[in-house]
């Protein structure tokens, strides 16, 4: 297309504005974490690192971080196992109701998070609590694993479609049993997609708030819940700001790694 020079310049300026609008708010959070006043008034007149020190020593943050890591780790492991199993079944076998199973895996992220949250909250309270499984750490893990399965599933299934089945047949022809074939031939073939899916699942779980608010008991605080509970408290806002700044930097690492891992097989 022959775009006129002014049109090109307009588009370039527009793209610049959009990118600025995407990154300035994030930069603002990082800068504001050094703002000396608690009211967050702008422009920043005095810079300080005292909120960083306060955040580092904050017990609530540490506990919440540890809870988040526990939840995300267990949810990721469940997602890795279940997601890979479904990916295997859907990419290798033909069976009745295949499309329905596919839809079922995607459903937890296709429906608004609040629906998953309310539904699980309701089940735990009316069915599982009388059986002794009330809301708590376990219910949060269940919620997170449910919507994390699809992350692993997507990655592993995409890789399976490109894998060379002949290699597995060759391994079995040469006398390897199914398990040996799986661990020495099949698994190494989709290992990087498996890890990438796991990282995405972990990142998703670590950041999740909507399903968490509905599945957590009052005492269960993941890091997002802690931020949620403290964001409106003026005296806690500077510490929340520091945590937000840390999360901006830290959350991009697993995603970067996962893109490196899956980027390999696009070549």
């Amino acid at each position, binding site marked *: 297309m022959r775009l006129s020079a002014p049109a090109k310049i307009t588009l370039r300026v527009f793209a610049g504005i959009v990118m600025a*609008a995407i990154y300035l708010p994030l930069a603002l959070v990082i800068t504001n974490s050094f703002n000396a006043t608690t009211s967050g008034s702008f422009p920043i007149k005095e810079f300080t690192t005292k909120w960083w020190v306060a955040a580092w020593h904050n017990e609530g943050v540490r506990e919440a971080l540890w809870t988040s890591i526990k939840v995300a780790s267990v949810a990721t492991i469940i997602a890795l196992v279940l997601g890979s199993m479904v990916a295997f079944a859907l990419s290798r*076998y033909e069976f009745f109701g295949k499309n329905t199973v596919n839809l079922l895996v995607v459903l937890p992220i296709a429906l*608004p*998070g*609040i*629906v998953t949250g*309310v539904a699980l909250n309701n089940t735990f309270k*009316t069915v599982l609590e009388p059986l002794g499984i009330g809301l708590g750490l376990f219910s949060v893990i269940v919620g997170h694993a449910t919507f994390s399965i699809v992350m692993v599933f997507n990655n592993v299934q995409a890789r399976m479609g490109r894998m060379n089945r002949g290699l597995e047949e060759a391994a079995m022809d040469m006398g390897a049993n199914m398990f040996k074939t799986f661990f020495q031939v099949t698994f190494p073939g989709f290992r990087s997609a498996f890890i990438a899916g796991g990282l995405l699942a972990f990142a998703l779980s670590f950041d999740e708030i909507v399903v968490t608010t509905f599945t957590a008991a009052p005492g269960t605080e993941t890091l997002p819940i802690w931020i949620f509970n403290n964001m409106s408290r003026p005296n806690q806002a500077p510490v929340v700001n520091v945590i937000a700044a840390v*999360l901006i930097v830290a959350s991009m690492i697993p*995603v970067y790694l996962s893109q490196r891992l899956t980027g390999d097989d696009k070549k």
Partner: protein
Amino acid sequence: MTPKHHLAPGFPPFAFFAPTSKEDRRDSSAPAMTALKTPPDTAVTRTIPTTQGPRNSSLADKISRYLYIRPKVRVTGLLLLPLLWLGVLYLGSLALLFITAFWTTDSFTSKVIPAFTLENFTEILTQPAYQATALRTIGIALAVTVLSAALALPLGLYMAKVASPKMRALLAIGITLPLWAGYLVKVFSWRIIFSTGGPLDWLLAPFGASGPGYGTTALVITLTYQWFPYMAVPVYSAFRQIPVNLFDASSDLGAKSWATVRTIAIPLLKPAFIAGSIFTFSLSLGDYIAAQFVGGKTQVIGTVIASNINLNPPLAAAFGIVPIIVVVIYLFLARKTGALKAL
């Protein structure tokens, strides 16, 4: 044990087939590599003599042999756990939610009473406050969708047709990376921006204006910021797939830039817009955290659900059905246009 280089970037997928010890390498690597290029039956006859070991029958071998000839057992085994989780626990929960929506609560103890009633739905449909909330939420979700699409079009045009390949790659990463920066973090940043005396007020002060403050406008902007990547990515990739000839032909026939965009690009981008809109719409519809922090007094479906979940679970359940129905209708309309295949 497998050598480290198996994960090396760009290594061909058959790398994991490389033998693990030096002895093996001498024996089998050459035939194995040629085997990849020759038809499978030739490969078998060539590789068997060098690698066939003694036929032992361990338990693993027996199980393996049992499973090998029974694909139905294998697929059942693979699906059993995932279906227990997703089919029984998750789908069961959704079904129970649906049933609970027809139940009622004891107004004193907030205990759910399993007795069939349409009360919750009549309340949602007839109470003006609930009606307004549902419509307002749908309106906000539509506004976010339209705004995202309006921003994604010129950005996609720039990335696909003007930017250099290097710039294009940079922007493509630049759009998607903030998706992972943390949902609450982004809500928090806009909470700072819209705060009284905050950055936006400061920026607008020289023009004698001030920011909108917390409210519906702030909510729409915040949600657009959150979900914009879901619209920008499909639109950009669809832009790239439009053949250059079409644009050239259009301008050869005398169409100006905007006419080309309007008559050539937009119709071809329609599936991408719809695919993106499913995310921006559905995600905005279910949101209530942003509404709580930047929405001021704005009530959305989510806030009503959240405030009723402990006091009146059946009403919360009934209100939870609303986004499901809206999303299903939206998906149905989207499917009619054939856009779902592009997902």
